[in-house]
C-alpha cells in the first residue's frame, strides 16, 4: 500500500504531473505515491518526470484504460 494515492483520472496534460508533484510533498522521504491516470501521454511523462526529479518509478502498468504509476521519493536529501 502506497503512502499516498492520487486519482488523476479524466485529467489531461499537464495536470496529472502537476498534481503528482503536489502529492509528493505529502509523502515522507523514501515513501511511495500511487497515481491513477487515463491520459495516455502520462506514460512517457511520468518516466521523464522521474528521470528529472530523482524520484524512482517503481512500477507502471495499464488495465482497462487506466494507467497506474508507483513513485518512490528519494530516501534522503
Amino acid at each position, binding site marked *: 500500500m502506497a503512502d499516498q494515492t492520487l486519482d488523476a483520472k479524466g*485529467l489531461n496534460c499537464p495536470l496529472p*504531473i*502537476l498534481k503528482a*508533484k503536489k502529492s509528493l510533498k505529502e509523502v515522507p522521504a523514501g515513501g511511495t505515491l500511487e497515481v491513477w491516470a487515463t*491520459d495516455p501521454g502520462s506514460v512517457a511523462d511520468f518516466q521523464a*518526470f522521474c528521470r528529472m*526529479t*530523482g*524520484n524512482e518509478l517503481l512500477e507502471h502498468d495499464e488495465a482497462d484504460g487506466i494507467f497506474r504509476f508507483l513513485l518512490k521519493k528519494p530516501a*534522503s536529501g
Partner: protein
Amino acid sequence: MTIESNEVASGGSRSMSIIVTKGSLDWAYPPFILSTTAAAMGLEVTMFFTFYGLPLLLRDLDPKISTLGNPAMKMPMMGGHMGMPNIVSMLPGVEQATSKMMKNLMNKKGVASIRELRDLAVEADVRLIACQMTMDLFEYSLDDMIDEAELGGAATYIEAASQSDINLFI
C-alpha cells in the same frame, strides 16, 4: 524557490525562461503548460509577458479565441472536424460563441483552465515579469495585474535568459 530533496538528487536546479507574446486562449496554453511543468520538474522558471501576452497577467483574466485567419482550427463536430469560413468569423458574437465552445470542450476533456494554470504557476514560484514598455504603451498599471507580477524590461529578461538552460519565445 526552495530547493527540495528531489531537486538536489538531480544535480541542482536548472532553469527556463519564456517570452510570452500572445494572449489569445489557444496561445496562452503552451507557455503556462510548460512553465508549470518545468517548475514541477525542479526548474526555476521566468516568464516575460510582452505585447499581446501582457493581458495574461491581468487580475481580470478572460482570454478569447478567434477563428478569423485560423484555417487550421477545426473543431470536432458531428463525428468529423469543421472549420469556419472567415466571413462567418467576422460576424459579431462569433468570437464569444467560439470561445465558449472551446472552454466547454476543454472542461469536458479535463484540460485545465488558463486561470488554474496561472494559479499553479504562482504557487510554484514562477517569476512573472510584466514588460514595462508594453505596460506604458497599452496604458496598464501594476494595479491592474496580479500581485505576483513584477515590472521589468529587456535587460531584466536578458539577465534571466543568460542564466537559463532553456529559453523559449512563444
